[in-house]
């Protein structure tokens, strides 16, 4: 897995710094994501992992630095613009519509793909109808892909946590993103659920060619899954490279095991 060829750079992050008041959350971070790879960001709690994702999809606005996505450089971008450019994400705390069914939640992920206006949709005729059928088919493919047929019509709020995570991944996939951001996709799961989720992440990557950037603090999972790993610690960039390099990096070992530097 680690030896495969990587594509062109799809996302480049240059010298990003982000502060909340005096709190420096991200300090001069630079890395890139190549097309078709699984790129992980790891680090202890409070390292700035989620903030980094929030910067990428336009939720936070960094004070310094720039982001280049598919050749367009910018410092700020609204989340809906990021979404329309092909970035989708999931959240650490599940953010689904609890009262709606699995199918409807996934259909909301198709929202940006719908082109007809409210008028046609309300009448449910002509182009709106064709469009709805197309989108339903796309949603059904995702349901099939994630093996959640049995909960298609169940309200999401009643599902166990592991399945909700899967539905959330489904909704992100429904947008057919070029870059998928996953915020701790395996948090709170038992080992069997983790294994399933790993399988889905690998399958998404290989079947759809989706580029994936994920955050995780389970080191073992990340090392098996990723092409390249970026390590953050207290907002600083600690290491960046293929899993074997990162694993052997003394700074990373110290940060994770809490061994003081001997200088």
């Amino acid at each position: 897995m680690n030896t495969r060829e990587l594509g062109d750079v799809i996302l480049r992050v240059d010298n990003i710094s982000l502060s909340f008041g005096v709190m420096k959350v991200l300090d001069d971070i630079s890395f890139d994501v190549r097309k078709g790879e699984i790129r992980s960001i790891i680090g202890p709690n409070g390292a700035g992992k989620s903030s980094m994702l929030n910067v990428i999809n336009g939720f936070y606005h960094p004070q310094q630095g720039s982001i280049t996505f598919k050749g367009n450089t910018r410092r700020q971008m609204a989340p809906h613009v990021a979404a329309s450019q092909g970035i989708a994400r999931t959240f650490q705390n599940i953010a689904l519509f609890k009262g709606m069914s699995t199918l409807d939640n996934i259909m909301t992920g198709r929202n940006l793909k719908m082109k007809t206006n409210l008028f046609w949709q309300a009448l449910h005729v002509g182009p709106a109808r064709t469009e709805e059928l197309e989108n339903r088919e796309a949603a059904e493919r995702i349901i099939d892909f994630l093996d959640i047929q049995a909960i298609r019509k169940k309200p999401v709020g009643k599902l166990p946590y592991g399945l909700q995570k899967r539905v959330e991944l489904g909704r992100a996939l429904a947008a057919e993103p070029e870059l998928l951001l996953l915020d701790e996709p395996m948090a709170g799961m038992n080992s069997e659920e983790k294994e399933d989720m790993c399988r889905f992440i690998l399958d998404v990557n290989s079947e759809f060619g989706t580029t994936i950037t994920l955050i995780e603090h389970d080191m073992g999972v990340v090392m098996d899954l990723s092409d390249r790993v970026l390590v953050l610690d207290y907002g600083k960039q600690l290491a960046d490279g293929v899993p074997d390099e990162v694993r052997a990096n003394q700074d990373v070992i110290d940060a994770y095991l809490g061994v003081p530097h001997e200088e």
Partner: protein
Amino acid sequence: MEQDTNLDTFPKLLQSHVKLRPEQAAIREKDLGIWQSWTWAETATEIRALACGLASLGLRRGEKLAIIGDNRPRLYWAMTAAQALGAVPVPLYQDSVADEMAYVLDNADVKIALAEDQEQVDKLLEIRERCPGLGHIIYDDTRGLRTYDYDFLHDFEQVQRAGVEYDQQHEGFYEREIEAGHGGEVSITLYTSGTTGNPKGVVLSNDNVIVTARNGIVREGLTSREEVLAYLPMAWVGDNLFSYAQSYVAGFCVSCPENASTVANDLREIGPTYYFAPPSIYENMLTQVMIRMEDAAAIKRRMFDYFMAHARRVGVRILNREPVSLKDSLLYRLGDILVYGPLKDVLGLRRTRLAYTAGEAIGPDIFDFYRSLGINIKQLYGQTECMVFICVQPDGEVYADTVGTPAIDVEIRVEDDGEIMYRSPGVFQAYYKNPESTASTKTDDGWVHTGDAGFFDEATGHLKIIDRARDVGKLNDGTLFAPKYIENKLKFFSFIKEAVLFGNARDYSTAFINIDLDAVGNWAERRNIAYTGYIDLASQAAVYDLIKECVDKVNRDISEDRQLANSQIRRFLILHKELDADDGELTRTRKVRRGFVGERYDKLVEALYSGQDQCHIETEVTFEDGRRGKLSADVRIVDAEVYPSPAETRGAAA
């Protein structure tokens, strides 16, 4: 146009349906949330392409094609495709771990394997080196397999494309191959899991399968309009009969569920007219209904209770077309509108004309529940060795404790030692490469030992099964010990999922109990009993009390039977884990492997007989993917109430 009854192979039957009913649906599958169907004509085209594709990969007459996966149209087509070439399909249990698969693939001399998906392909790749005969592997679902780069691994569609080309280059090949097939040729090899030893390959000829299927159709008056849901493992003889052979003979449509977890929903959407389920599924459906009724509003619950009581009183008589009073009949009809109809609809059994159950004894309460709703559920008695049918209950003569009268063309005799033997057109050819077992099971003149003990009931003329002959033993005081009979009584309680009795060559009977996680879990929640999982729930004092009540009731029940009164359960324990086929404790058809369980938990068995009230045990468990882990628990052992038998009370009074 009538179908020619001389058609003696499945490919020939297929050709006849293409002529008789080309536009009628032959098979259906739910895909992307929509039922997709293939007509008989379309099915024939798919099968032709696949058969020629298999030929292009080198599959020849007499060679074996393994089929591994859930019920899928393509997997059923592969059976006919192999048979068209005169090759033999060998379906495997899809949940087998890699080691079990290796045994069967090697034993059966499988040349090509068709796997449903990546999970099965991975298992095959793991064991490929141990099965030198296994050449090509074909897969149905491409997902996750795009990056696999082996020259022996092929996509199903790619094989079909190669087949179309092969067909064009070899004019008349396909027709000639079908023409060469005949009734005496091997149709299929089915591996029986067996409660002891390695699985055995039961070799069945086309005549065995087709004649038996046709006899079953004639006896029950089945037509080409039946609807059947194919949801039981393809490796099991019953699925081969109900979802394949009888469909090809009668021409009815078979539907494949979306996946294993959607079966209940698919059942409801299809509404089968002809349905088979083992007793555990009927039990489970009833448990679900009862759990949901407890959550229902008071008025609904009252209505349900009232009409169910009425159904219990007259429902079975109405089903048997016996006379009932006008008032009862009208009230039953009202109940049908308000309760029975909607309930049957939820269960997916509203259109069911004929439902079978077999494999285990079914609880009389469960049996009567379905029959009182107007569902014609009947018991049958069968074996892989004769393509299922030995006995079937005739309409209107259905009893909870018999298995009916001999099926068409079946002869039955009961040996002096009580063993049931039969002879029928379905009797298998041999166990594959196992002449010793064949000789000890089948006599030269075609009679087969069932290994079951039983007798013909004088009042009804029906066959009654007592137990597996080899399980029947004696307690140390010389009285009869028939474990299965008592285990079944225990399992009739919804709280008890599985029970294993010990007592042969012991002073008294004891039992291992497996609780039903759904039923007991629900019961615990209603009483605000918190639990973290199976082990925790199984060890709770309140749960022990609950199970003790069940055991006590069974003891009181058997205390009235003079022969069995001594087999009352003195001590029992609730096992800390569910018995599982992956650990070898159950067969793939979920039958307990008594000897193995006794050995594996010998420490617990000894504790049952040594007077200890607690026992620490560590158990190795196998996960679905073949990994192993350890489970440890302190298991409590409890004494049950023992009742005096009527003989004893009389003796004491005298």
